[in-house]
Every structure is written in C-alpha cells, then in structure tokens.
C-alpha cells in the first residue's frame, strides 16, 4: 500500500519565495514521522539496528563469565533484548565482553581476539578485575584492567556483577550507539 503524502520538493532553480502553496506543503520531520515516513542517514539506521542486535563474543575469563552465562539463561534471558547470539568465533562477533581477570599470559590472546573482530566493534568490561584489576591489582601476573589492552566502551562494576547489571551494561552500550554525541572518552595512557 502506497502512503499518500503531501510532500512537495522544491522546483529546479529554487523555490519561489512567498508562495503560500509551497510553504504550506513542506512538512517538518516530526510531521513526517507521524505519517510513517522517516528520513535518516544510513549511519543512523545502521546504529539503530546494531543497537538491537549486538552479537557478543563467547569469551569467558573468570568468575564473571559464569554470571555472563547466567544472563543468557532462562531466568534473565538476554535474548529479550536481542543479545543472545553468542558467537564462538571473533570473526562473527561485534561486542567483546571481557568477563574476568586478564593475566599477563592471557594478554596477547585478548589483544589478538580484539583485532580479529571486524569493525565496527565494542568492548564491555565486566567486573572489578576487568575495570581495574580488582582485588588482584597488586599481583605480579595481573593486568590492571581491560583498558590497558583494548579500548573499553562500557564498564560494569561488581565482583561479579549481577546479571541485571550485565543487561544494563548492554543497554548502556545501545544508548551509546544511538546517541554517539553523548559518548565520553576516558583515556588512560599510562
């Protein structure tokens, strides 16, 4: 069914000024949206779609990975939000959930996995260890936070965070995707 609209595009050579017919027919974006027409950029459309169907990389490091699994199970059910498609291969994933302690031995593997993921990609750091090293920060073998290895978009605190917090972290990432102007970049170059 074709939608009937009153849109009239400006004629070649410019719109004659003061023509009441033309100004009457031109609609604002809100009016168009109310009639079911959406003008958008491809980028915005893509980000809207990606925000609803993030494919996380199935990649568990420590305790937080168990809560990450719980989040996908029947009680919390992350598929309500469209995030249940955990991919085992980094080539198919677009979100890396760093769930647990990164050790010096694991560091190259985490870095490699991140680089194997296709662009665009995002990283969520879950739990104290992935945020800052957590209780193990002064250990000889622990990397003090995932942001020392990969750029992190969302931090979810907790040791480990409850599944509700992990879902909230995913929704924060969605908000960041749909409102890129709101994003804050905190960089630690140390």
């Amino acid at each position: 069914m074709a939608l009937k609209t009153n849109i009239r595009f400006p004629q070649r050579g410019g719109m004659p000024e003061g023509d009441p017919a033309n100004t009457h027919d031109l609609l604002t974006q809100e009016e168009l949206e109310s009639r079911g027409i959406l003008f958008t950029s491809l980028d915005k459309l893509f980000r809207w779609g990606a925000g609803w169907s993030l494919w996380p990389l199935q990649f568990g490091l420590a305790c937080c990975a168990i809560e990450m699994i719980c989040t996908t199970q029947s009680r919390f059910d992350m598929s309500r939000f469209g995030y249940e498609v955990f991919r085992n291969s980094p080539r198919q994933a677009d979100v890396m959930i760093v769930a647990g302690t990164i050790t010096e031995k694991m560091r190259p593997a985490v870095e490699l996995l991140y680089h194997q993921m296709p662009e665009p990609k995002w990283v969520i750091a879950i739990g104290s260890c992935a945020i800052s090293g957590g209780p193990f920060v002064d250990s000889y073998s622990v990397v003090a936070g995932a942001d020392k290895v990969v750029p992190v978009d969302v931090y979810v605190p907790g040791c480990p965070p409850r599944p509700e917090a992990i879902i909230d972290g995913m929704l924060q990432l969605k908000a960041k995707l749909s409102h890129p102007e709101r994003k804050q970049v905190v960089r630690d170059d140390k």
Partner: protein
Amino acid sequence: MSENGNAYSERYTLNLGPQHPSTHGVLRIVADFDGETCISADPVIGYLHRGMEKLLESRTYPQGLPYTDRLDYLAGVNNNLPLALAVEKLLGVEIPERASLLRMLTCEIMRLASYMVGIGIYIMDLGAVSGVFYPFQQREYALEVMSALCGARMTQGYIRFGGVQADWNDEAEAALDVLYKELPPFIEMYHKLIDENEIFLRRTKGVGVITAERAKSYALTGPNLRASGVDYDLRRDAPYCLYDRFTIKVPVQQAGDCHARYAQRMLEVEEILKLIKAIHAALKETEPGKIMGAVPKMLRPPAGEAYAQTENPKGIMGCLVASDGKGVNPLRVHFRRPSFDNIAIFSELMPGHKVADLIAIIASFDIVLGEIDG
C-alpha cells in the same frame, strides 16, 4: 602408512584454547593428532594465574578470606571453609553449633549449584543446548537462598573466622522451600531427558575410562574418583564441622567412563538434597543468634602450621596455613586445588581418543579454571 594403520592419515598439532567454548574457561590443550586419533595431549595452564597464594601473604587473615571465593567460583562458600578451618585450628577457637550447621547447609547448597553447572555445561558441550537451561534454572533457586541469606549470589564470603556472617532468616527459609519443591521434579525430568538419549550414550559410554588404580595413583578426588569405583568421601570418612552427626550415603559408579561421571553427579544431587533437608531440620532445633565464636578483633594466630581439608564439589580442597606468631599476615598459605590435580590425568587419558571425545572428557571432569590456575 601411518602408525595406526590408516592409509591416508596426516599428523598435525591441534591447539584447543585458551579461547574455546568447550574448555570451561581458559584451559589450553595442545594435542597431536594422527588423522582423527589423538596421539598426545598436553594441558597448558596458567592463563588465569593471579598469584593468589602470594597475595594472601600480604593480606591480613580476614582480608584473605574473600580471595578464596574466587578459586572455585562456582562454589564460593566451600572454598572459604578449608582456610577458615585451618586458621581456627591455629587459633583454637570453639565454633558455635549453629554456625557449624549454617556452614554445612550453605556448603551443600553451593555444592548443588556447582553440580548443576557441571551437569548443564557437560550436556551443552556434547551438543544438547537445551540441556543447559534446566540445571541453570535449578541453580538460580539455590543462589536465591544464598542471596537471601547474605546478599551475594556467587562469591559470597559467607564464612568468617569463628563463625558465619549472617544468621538464618525467613527469606532464606522461603527460598529454600522453593528449592525443595522444584528440585525433585527436575531430577526426574532430567533423567528422562538425558539418560536414554542415544547420542549422549554413544558419545560417553566407554570414553575416557579410568580404572580405580589409575584414579588413585593420579590423586583424583571428588565425583571423578567415585565414578571410578573408589568409595571415598571426606564428609563421611574424615568428617569436619558436624558431618559426623549425619548419615551420608555416598553413591559410587564402577564404569569410570564419561557416562559414569555424569551418572555419579546426578546420583549425588539426590543425596545432597536429602542432606540439605537433614541439616535444615537440625538447624531449626538450635537457638538463633549465636553464630560467632569468641574470636579476637585482631587475628594473630600463634606460630605454627595447620592443615585442613574439605570435600568440595570438585574434589578434596586442602589449605595449609603457616603463621610466625607475630604478624597479622600469614607466613605462607597453600591450597590443594582439586581441579588442578584432576586434570593431570588428561595427558594419559586423551591419547587414543577421537577429536570429539576430547571435548567429552574435558566436560565430564567439571573443571574450574580459577581453581586450576590459582
């Protein structure tokens, strides 16, 4: 012509992990194959090594206790217990009866939660994805009890030196009632779902067979040992806390293969439920309130060494604590981590099996990497 008689087989090295969905974390196995057949397998560990024993030397005793939760993170309370028992042995503290019962009750609840993960992930690794949803639902009921009792789901830190953190409450009682109601139908349903499954039987029967002698010589403990026909359970044979008050029936399997390790855990789940009910009944008879022994504010155990061991979901967890009698930090803490000792048999067990059997063997052992790497 290759060694095993296959005309066109090729030798190659397969690297499994550290990022692999079926290695239960960050275990890495470097295996050599001749065609489909494994000729050697070498577990590479240390990808989650956080230096926990060294860290505990720079923490005071109460600060060190929450670290043990992160060893076997599927059963946090069970890991607190050996450290608490060892330090209490040094201090010579008397534990109130109610605190001991609460320790046992929470340990059994978390043992149940850990078995649920073990069984569920095992079935999922063998390809039955829906098989993981049901046990995880039961695990949620168990975690709900812990959540009501002390506020944390996974890494509770519930046990303190001299007692426990919080007393039993009505909310936990209600959550435990839900567990009583939901678990028996689940066990019945899961037996129907899995036991007769042709694919499951084909992939597990006769795979990864460990004889009782080999199991003992490799120091296997826990359900993996009992699945090989060795009737040994610390709760019954060397009781700690107040386990000697209860009659504990220990199921044993004779086959020692991957299927026996599954069946063993399912049988133990029923026994755990009975034990939870017995401990719960005993708990109701004690007076509420007294959950901490007379423990000094600043813990300075006298010089000496103490060792305590408990039966954890993965096997026997031991803890050695050495104190110099002066400092507030332990001089040395060492853990005997059951998963670490259990995976030593992999290099002997895996050769001769096919690629897919390796996954079944890893899954049937129910390992936890936090415990292996420490």
